[in-house]
């Protein structure tokens, strides 16, 4: 199958309950690799049976406990059926943990493949830094994270660098292995003793391929989708080119085509609210929120909003925009702004702001999804009609 065919893959990125902000990396990288059929599903969409329209489901980083909670058994089973019927599942970090059985008494997650991990222990090594995000309790023990940041992965044919933010070192049979953890580098951040980290990670699988019935799991520890790691992106591209584009794609979105004064007014509202939100998020002073089992630093919100802003800016050059529920997006943008203002006030008073942060993440996802949908719609239209909006 040619690379051009793979560019027609119908890709669904999960952005629902429990997904972290790192799905944005997939969007940026898929965009730069010229995948235009990129769509976004939340837990409701998956439970609603949307997956059958796609060739590939990306389960990005996040909190597997919350993702499983959001999907519930109904959604989880929809994903299982998707794979059994020929779908490809790309899991990264949380998406990987969610799909494998690494404990004799597994949580009721996807549990599609028996893959042990080398970072689960009932007595994990002592953390030397970032204790707040080092351990995640799981049944009788803990999943621990020996290192963070850049490291080297490879196999007999290639090696490159990729960032790790909690993904597992997997103990997998040779036939499943795509890449192993090879070494650390000068940018690796050790959360435990370096030697212990090495013995935990190096030599174990960083990426595996597990065929299941008609479908296949591609499971990664590191974030090969991270836009700052082009070699890792090319590896991901290689994986994608092995997937056959067979799915029809989702039904056409019910959009309002904004143009003229209506577009200007809408754009002004979104820009004003998003800009105010960016200003506020930059002014937060090292806040952290624990949402589920995942710790969110305020800088992640800053990144999230900055990327949403860039998408908005990229849409400014069009004379018309296909927007789904534009009024709802306006409300959403105002909500993001007001939540950040509330967080600022409450945090200054020493109050807990977890509830507001959770709402903020959700609202930001919805707004960025709305903008990305328009972006990819236009990208596809440009492809089809030689630069004109159809």
């Amino acid at each position: 199958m040619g690379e051009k065919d793979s560019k027609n893959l119908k890709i669904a990125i999960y952005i629902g309950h429990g997904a972290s902000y790192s799905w944005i990396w997939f969007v940026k990288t898929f965009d730069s690799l010229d995948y235009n059929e990129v769509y976004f599903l939340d837990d409701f969409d998956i439970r609603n049976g949307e997956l059958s329209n796609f060739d590939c489901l990306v389960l990005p980083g996040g909190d597997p406990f919350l993702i499983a909670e959001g999907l519930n058994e109904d959604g989880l089973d929809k994903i299982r059926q998707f794979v059994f019927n020929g779908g490809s599942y790309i899991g990264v970090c949380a998406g990987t943990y969610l799909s494998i059985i690494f404990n004799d008494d597994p949580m009721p997650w996807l549990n599609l493949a028996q893959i042990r991990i080398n970072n689960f222990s009932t007595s994990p090594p002592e953390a030397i830094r970032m204790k707040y995000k080092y351990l995640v309790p799981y049944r009788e023990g803990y999943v621990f994270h020996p290192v963070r940041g850049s490291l080297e992965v490879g196999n007999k044919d290639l090696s490159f660098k990729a960032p790790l933010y909690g993904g597992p070192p997997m103990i997998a049979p040779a036939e499943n292995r795509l890449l192993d953890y090879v070494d650390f580098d000068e940018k690796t951040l050790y959360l435990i003793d370096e030697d212990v980290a090495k013995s935990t990670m190096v030599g174990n699988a960083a990426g595996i391929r597990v065929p299941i019935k008609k479908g296949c799991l591609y499971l990664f520890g590191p974030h090969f989708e991270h836009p700052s790691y082009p070699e890792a992106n090319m590896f991901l591209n290689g994986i994608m080119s092995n997937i056959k584009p067979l799915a029809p794609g989702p039904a056409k979105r019910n959009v309002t085509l904004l143009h003229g004064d209506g577009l200007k007014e809408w754009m002004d509202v979104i820009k004003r609210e998003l800009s105010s939100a960016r200003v506020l998020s930059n002014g937060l002073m090292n806040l952290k929120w624990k949402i589920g089992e995942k710790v969110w630093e305020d800088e992640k919100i800053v990144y999230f909003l900055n990327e949403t802003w860039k998408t908005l800016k990229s849409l400014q050059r069009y004379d018309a925009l296909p927007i789904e529920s534009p009024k709802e997006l306006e409300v959403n943008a105002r909500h993001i702004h007001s939540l950040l203002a509330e967080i600022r006030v409450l945090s200054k008073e020493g109050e807990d702001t977890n509830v507001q942060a959770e709402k903020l993440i959700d609202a930001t996802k919805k707004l960025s999804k709305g903008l990305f949908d328009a972006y990819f719609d236009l990208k596809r239209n440009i492809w089809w009609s030689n630069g004109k909006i159809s």
Partner: protein
Amino acid sequence: MDNMYTEYYLVVDLATGEAEEVELEEEFVEQYVGGAKLNLALYDKYKDEDPIVFGSGLFTSTLIPGSCLGVLTAKSPLTGKVAHASITWNAGAELKFTGYSFVVVKNKAAEPTYLWLHDEIADFVDASSIWGKDTWEATDAIRDEQGEDRIQLLIIGKAGENKLTTAQVINNYWGDGDRFGFGALFGEKNLKAIAMRGMGELELDDADAFLEKAEDLFKDVVAKVGAAKGFDAADYADISADLKAAAAKQTHRVDADFNSPLAYKVYLKYREDPSVMDMTDNWNPGVLVSDPIGFAAIGKAVNPDAAGEVLEKVFRLGLNPVAVASKLTAKDAAGAIAELEKLAESSEAEKFDAVFSPMAPESERTEAAYIAGICPVLAAKVDTLNADTYAELASLTTGLDFDADAFKM
């Protein structure tokens, strides 16, 4: 304009509450380059609507050393002539980051207002709750209202609100280069402040070549500035030995403008031990001597050890220190502060009777710096920060042809 500037400049009409984005055309930049020169062209364009122009230079907010400069251009209530005030620190750079390299403020607001510029958005915000507050309180209030402590402001105090020609536009909390009574113009327009915060980016024509040149220039400038810092770096100001000795006992740190190696600004602490470097609960422990000439003038009028505290009051009230120093009769801090409060409350337009003193020595290099967007204090010290250098860098970054004459008014 594709490179070095934002795509648009902003024209704000305080009377109607409307803001219009106007394309900053390449030909316009080719002709007027930037800073004071381009400001003047914009002033002329809108002169029938009583404009204040705040603009950046071509290199403002870039990696060129000293690229902090913003320029405020308007008709001076003192002289009746159009004048250019240098705005140092971070405000010029922040303006460009907001997405507007220049902003023209026309006409008069019906009610107290502040202009809030952020990421290509211009908001007119009701300032009635901060009208009457001093510049420090009002700066804090605006930053709190908009949720960011790094918002940069051009702001007035009571002196400006009362339209005194001794009023000065203050840069956040600190005095700056306005010796022209522009504070009174803000007051006349019911404009309490221009607040700015942006996260914009600039395009360059040949970024790699520019980076290389900027790095070389920075090394050269650092070598020429040498070890001089604090008042030794501000040797253009006539600061007496007694005043320096008194200030030395209160000196906490020295500071420099955006992307400048010249640390000529001195922070004095007189409400807590200046040797304590950690932040404390006291948010107002002293004053930044941001205007050494103004400090020298105040230091001549009052006891040297009271000069910092008196300068703080000058900044809080939004007064021009050079203009008011000659009016002070009390030598102690309390007496001088009481006199300043009375001065700022005056309902009569005070006529300027002090000798005009620029922020930096006047020279061809200062003139070029006002166009290029380079701190004039630094440019006055470093011979390579000149029109020839700017012309070469301008051609490199914009893709247009500039010669040294472009950096003359």
